[in-house]
């Protein structure tokens, strides 16, 4: 065989090998990661979930049935922030006052969640 043909063959083999490897592994890894993320998201959506979080009562809106809480991170749902939550029963609002450090339970199908239990801490 002529030398240049051999060289060409080697290079083609290299390119094909690298390309094939990328197509086989590189692309597949990306695809698998995407699928994993999708599967995770699918598993978590549409299902009733429950969190217990610490927070502090900032405001009470009895007429709206809303409690404003500064809370820590709610894993998989929202980061730490101050926001209003629906309460499952008016009693929950009556049990606390502004400034109370509380541990509360959130329950529901995100984003439809409500405070179901609350207790003062400290």
């Amino acid at each position, binding site marked *: 065989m002529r030398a*240049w043909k051999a*060289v060409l063959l080697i290079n083609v083999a290299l390119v094909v090998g690298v390309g094939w490897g990328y197509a086989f592994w590189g692309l597949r890894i990306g695809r698998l990661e995407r699928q994993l993320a999708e599967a995770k998201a699918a598993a978590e959506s549409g299902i009733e979930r429950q969190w217990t979080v610490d927070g502090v009562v900032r405001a009470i809106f009895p007429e709206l049935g809303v409690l404003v809480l500064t809370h820590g991170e709610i894993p998989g749902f929202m980061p730490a922030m101050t926001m209003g939550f629906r309460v499952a029963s008016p009693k929950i609002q009556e049990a606390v006052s502004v*400034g109370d450090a509380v541990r509360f339970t959130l329950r529901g199908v995100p984003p439809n969640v409500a405070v179901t239990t609350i207790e003062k801490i400290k």
Partner: protein
Amino acid sequence: MKVCELLERDLDERERGRAGLRRIDRAEGVDARFGRCGDGADPMDGLVERERGDRRAVQVRRDGRGRARDGVVTERVMDRMHRRLDREDRDEENERGHDQSARAPPHEPSGRQQSHERDRPGHVGLIVYAENSEGSDRFRGGRELRGLEDRALDTADMGVGRGRSQQRSGHGDDRQHAQHEPHSSEETCRTQCQWPIRYTDRVYALGLAGRWLHLTSSVLLVGAAAMIVLAGRSDRATAQRWERTVLTSACWLALVALASGIVVLATQTALFEGRGAAAFEPRAIGRVLVQTQAGHVWLVRAGFLALLAAFLSIRMSVERRADWRAARGEAVLLGVAALVPLAAAGHAAAVEPDTARAIVLDALHVLGAGIWVGGLLPLALLLRAAAGEAGADARPHAVLAARRFSRAALGLVLVLAATGTGLAITHVGNVAGLVGTTYGRLLLAKLALLILALSLAALNRSVLLARLGGDGPTVGRPAMRRLAGFVTVEAGLALAILVIVAAMNVTPPARHEAPVWPFTIRLSFAALEGRAAEATRALIGSQIGVIGLVALITGLAVRAWRLPLAALALIALGAGAGLALPPLTIDAYPTTYLRPSVPYQAGAITAGAALYQASCAGCHGARGAGDGPDGRALPRPPADLRAPHTAQHTAGDLFWWISHGIPGSGMPGFGPRLTEDQRWELINFLRALSAGFGARGMGSTIERDRRWLVAPDFTFTVGPTPPRALKDYRGRNVLVVLYALPGSRPRMNQLAGREGTLAVLGVEVIAVPIDADPDAIRRLGDDPRVLFPVVTEGAETIVAAYRLFAVAPHVELLIDRQGYVRAITRSSGEAMDLDTLVAQVQQLNDEKTAGEAPPEEHVH
């Protein structure tokens, strides 16, 4: 969670932490700094373990952004690797039986095993850049748990490390606070991502020799192949003989490169694993190969080297031009492919940000060096062969080859200079790094050798190259013989440079080291501040210098006037320097460019303030004015620490004076009395004091584009939520309100009522009760509703630090998106026109901040 569960978990964490501990223990007694740095997805705490002798202090540093890293191994890969390592360690543990580890503290056995190694003094440390991600995470968990068991019992969430450490820093423990706060990326990198592993001289020498051999053979391979292509095809017997010789040696070189590559891989494995024995364990080597970026690069390169060796060993017919071109071109291609990936496994791969840019620069640098350095030796061989009586037939060929190489080398050297400068800026950064660190000094040595080699090359090019074509026996051949000799010397110099390169590969880049300034003076424009006469002198001197420079350039360009112009240039440059430089000099100390180990942070400032009152106020005065009662008897009046002249002094200068005192002035050295971190805290306080003195003039309206007052970072807690830091608010305007009830009630009501407006404008309000009442939220009440963060923990520290800037019953500090205090409103808390505030914020929002660097996290 029950106590027993906690303890069980604790034990488990300790078990899992062993991998991390073992690594620490290797460097015990030196200064083991390591920890983990995060990737974006998982910002986490880093742990810095410092062990000096018996004294042990665990420091947890929170790396909020979690972006710093430095590694030949990318973190994700190391992450995986350590997870595996930990798992396997645990498995081994199970095999050996648990009782041993349960009895002894987990870090002791491994530490002892290695003690004979680390006790050997006086050797250079090999440093691996890598993240101990998973290992230290667990390790940290274990450590933290152990220290905090008592506190842990009443907290349910035992989420490893982070929650705990933050919880702790939120408890207002100022001293801890100061040390635990986020560090700049560089700092984090320096302290957390390296494990200085001290190795014996022998191992170091072996590693270095292996690296050099590997580098040299890889470089020579490319050079040899490229030189053949440059020289072109020849039908002369001598030239063909030379070509065959070069090809045969290239084949052997490929094998040498492969073999030395294995040595390099083995030493690298030992470093990654942190134990010498790992170099001989196929399993450990396999892990490095599969799971680290350096391993991947090694595999790719080894593949190409093997292919190249096989390709070169095949004798194929290259009678035809196309065949010759294909075969020789392929050799170059494979050689380059085997050499260039090195860039992705060196320091360049650890640069952040702009990793890709650094890798490309490094790749070009390596490629340029490969062709130039590697081409010298084959060229010398060809010249030598052609210079002889017997090789006269190849003389035209050799002349052509030398000319082509010379032209190519000129371009390559330019490429090398450009990429080398870029890389030096990336890895070294400044003059202090160049002269004050091992890496920088190696670079200087490399430059010195390079200049020698280049002068020789210039001589060859200008004198000998032209004579090559002259009459054979009288001019051409002797010139060629001499050129061959010179090129050999040049090649020798180049190989010596490669020794330095190999050493640089295993030395941490200057940017990540603490530079030790070797001179007693430094130059700075700050020296001219407020000294008009000196400034004029410097200006005149610099102008004379410019004239000298112009003369020099003209002299180089104009041949006829070269000598007088050169003389003029010399005189002007000398006179200019003599005039301009003396006014610019400032005293300097070894620590002048040291980076503080404690960030500029409210906790550090408060801690520093306490230290100041205890150790310094006696002479320097309670307020830093230099009017303390004990200072009157001193030979020189104590310095007024509020004065702005501190700009002339780096934090490192202050560190030196505090540590060693100022001879003849009465200022004693506090080195023996205060720890290093305490001294830095003191410096943080001094900076805040000086800044606060300047902040007296700052009013409630902002000055456009004038940012100078850095807002010290702080952490705070609202109720039982996790701690936050001021720095988390970067990118938004922040209004820090120091308030006291009942005086501030009207203003607080006003702010609470208009919080929505402020939020829309991009202002976050952080309310800090001056009395640090943990029940502050309740006291503010619910009418109107106060929804912005009200600090319930950490207020004392914030108030203490920020009161250096403004003292009033009610203070509002407007901090811009980059973290500078821009306006300070002092009042007694009455309601004020909110439109003024809104106008200031709108003005802030109008400012262009793109390209403006956020303030340094350390004083400097």
